[in-house]
């Protein structure tokens, strides 16, 4: 025994050899679960009982109505709504409620989420008819007073649903990446010298740099819904972020204006402000689009 860890007497240490042997023989060593069927059933029933008790014991509960769809599972091929009753606690967000439902009722309930603090942009959802981040939406805020009786949770509209609340983000990413979303000035100072940037200029691009790629704006936009090629508010905002950054030279600014001026660029925007309204990072998207339109006009005047 090589280990320095003192083992209790009754432990037998044959596992590595046993598995090694099974592996060498090319056999499957993935056994069946070690509990028998009735034990498994009992354990699962006990879990369900605990969930029921938590709901019964709760002072207040909230009813989630959640969109379900899975092209691969016969019962879920036809989209439907499932209801989950979740115990309410002060401070509970829509994401907390969804996680509770998944962990206590239905482990197949599927949604993206990670940071729980509005920085990763994973959980833009359609909650009570509006694009919102699940993690940044207090359940209590969905009612005028007290807590809502019911919360309706759907995937982002105008995007292809992969499963339940998960939508395909590929189109959104393509649009974001089509505006050359990277700093391009190669003419940077040597060594440890930084490029200078004025505070005013940093302030000017500040809001535009806060985008977390959640896709809420794109989903809320009627124009984007009707025209798949429209760059959309987030991508145009990304272009704004670089076009307005004084660290990039003038030639580049012009190049950037050419990109957003294309057929499916800024001129498609009809200033409906829906994107600005839903953006969880409060980015003044419509304003940024308008500012780029003005810059494009200025540039064109210069060359005509």
């Amino acid at each position: 025994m090589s280990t320095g860890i003192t083992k209790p007497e009754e432990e037998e240490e044959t596992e590595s050899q046993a598995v090694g042997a099974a592996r060498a023989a090319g056999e499957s060593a993935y056994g069946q679960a070690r509990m028998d069927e009735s034990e498994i059933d009992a354990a699962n029933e006990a879990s369900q009982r605990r969930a029921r008790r938590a709901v019964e014991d709760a002072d207040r509960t909230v009813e989630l109505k959640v969109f379900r769809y899975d092209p691969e599972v016969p019962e879920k091929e036809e989209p439907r709504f499932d209801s989950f009753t979740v115990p309410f606690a002060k401070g509970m967000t829509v994401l907390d409620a969804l996680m509770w439902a998944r962990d206590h009722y239905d482990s197949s309930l599927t949604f993206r989420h990670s940071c729980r603090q509005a920085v990763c942009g994973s959980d833009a959802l359609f909650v009570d008819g509006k694009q919102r981040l699940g993690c940044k939406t207090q359940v209590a805020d969905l009612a005028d007073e007290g807590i809502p009786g019911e919360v309706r949770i759907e995937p982002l509209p105008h995007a292809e649903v992969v499963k339940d609340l998960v939508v395909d983000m590929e189109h959104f990413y393509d649009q974001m990446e089509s505006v050359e979303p990277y700093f391009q000035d190669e003419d940077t100072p040597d060594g440890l010298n930084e490029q200078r940037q004025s505070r005013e200029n940093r302030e000017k691009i500040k809001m535009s740099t806060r985008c977390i790629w959640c896709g809420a704006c794109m989903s809320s936009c009627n124009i984007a819904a009707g025209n798949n090629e429209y760059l959309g508010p987030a991508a145009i905002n990304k272009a704004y972020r670089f076009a307005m950054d004084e660290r990039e030279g003038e030639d580049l600014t012009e190049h950037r204006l050419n990109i957003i001026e294309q057929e499916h660029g800024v001129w498609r925007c009809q200033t409906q402000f829906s994107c600005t309204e839903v953006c969880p990072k409060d980015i003044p998207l419509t304003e940024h689009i308008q500012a780029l339109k003005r810059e494009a006009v200025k540039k064109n005047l210069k060359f005509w």
Partner: protein
Amino acid sequence: MTNNATMHEHDVIVVGGGGAGLRAAIAAEEEGADVAIVTKLHPVRSHTGAAEGGINAALRDGDDPKDHAYDTMKGSDYLGDAPAIETLCETSPEETIQLEHWGMPFSREEDGRVSQRPFGGLSFPRTTYAGAETGHHLLHTMYEQVVKRGVTVYDEFYVMDLAVTDHPDPDERECHGCIAYNIKSGDLVGFKADGVILATGGDGQAFDHTTNAVANTGDGLAMAYRAGVPVEDPEFVQFHPTTLPSTGVLISEGVRGEGGILYNSEGERFLFERGYANNDGELASRDVVARAELTEVSEGRGVNDEYVDLDMRHLGEERIVDRLENILHLAEDFEGVDGLEEPMPVKPGQHYHMGGIETDENGETCVSGLYAAGECACVSVHGSNRLGGNALPELIVFGARAGYDAAGRDLGEARIDTGPGARSETETDLDTPVSPGALDGAEPDAVADGGALATNAEAVVEDELRRQRERVETLLERDGINHAEIRSDLQDAMTEFVNVFREKEGLQQALEAIRDCRERYQNVAVADPSRTFNTDLLHTIETRNLIDVAETITLGALARDEFRGAHWRKEHQERKDDEWLKHTMISWNGGDPEVFYTDVILEGEEKTYEPKIRSY
């Protein structure tokens, strides 16, 4: 990215698209390698985006990387390795300016240069920042560079395990790639590569209350551990004293810095009135405040038996809105509390893991071709305690080094020795109530000590692919129990016994609880039958990783009977330099974990760091 092939080949594979992974990929690309990032989250969704404070870099006149190194060594409580610390501090300025050259929107001074601010434990205001969202900007700036360079990104691909040769001695093993699950399609794919860089981030989900993301499940650490790489200093976990109770969202020290006060349920300003920190009060160091808070709660003076109140109302609306506006938003959005009207509930939460996958200063582990960088790694710069603002520079400095080295650039021979062969001493009398490690007759994934038997690279990856396929099939097809309760019991046990208060008996109880979780895990199954976006399956596999991670933390904590940095032991209230100036190493050892030690390297390039009392 969609692709139906079951085998991909690249020179270098980077697992993870956070700050460390992106920097590693850019470096490998700069070096001319064909590099791909394989990541379970789209890169911009990585938790690096949550970092607020800043990046430490000695950039200015009057500052010196040597001072940064000195501060870091002192902060580490003399458990950092000098070659790693000096590399960090010397390289951080150029890496930070590199970010500026890539367009990162740093905050600016009047003269247009990047701003720096003071941070705890630093002798110079060298924390370079971009508003209150430094990590977000760092992450997005580097992702932009990845797009610019056309680096292949397999996003929403979950790496299940490594493909490593099966030599009995981990120092002799080679890594040839990894196996990933295409989350959208449900296909398992093999990635064959000459170099694999793990950059999978933190593992805060081992605790029930953490500032870490839901995706921070220690996957990379668990994979490297099972492949034979020692986990270094796992007992060192940083807890932050002010996090919101319902989500773990961080409320920065800024509130206390501006004069915010902590009260218990009896309205006492307990840090003073109960004598925890008679001089510094609320501004005492993180661990002191965290322990004080938990003591109040456990002695019945917690609010709702759970937390304490952080009150800033007396600062006045004007000052709060001016200096702490983002805190108002955090409290409102994530806790439903109006900080102008009521105190904010706070409690300690897991924040950062100092320990991790053992690497040398080039990022390489003892398994040839296997690298690690970022929070999952332990190189070790933070030793027993990380200074604020020192993790982000670690990502870019050691991410880049791992990327260069894996792509073939000669960085010179490392001074840090790795692997079981570097041991100075073996632990012989650790009193564990149950045996840690693999269970008798466990599933083979549990004892993947080096993976496949084959030696040719292709075959090693194929063998592993087959084994992972079987693993998935089994989980999907058999009947069993759900993993969620096991995970939550594991988290509860860790928070109860392995948090800021640690004592022998509690740690032993934690080992028993972990063992119990392992046994129950033998019966897990995935209820969702779908191949499409099966998060049930992924979370189930993550829970397995968390069990391994939690066990290494607890074993390390039980072994180290002293009080150093973030590791507090009830029975051992002093730092024992005679005995404990050494790194703890936990090695999977084929499922039969072994604890051994290696020497700390205090000899720097020019001088040797002399351990001093860490007081501020």
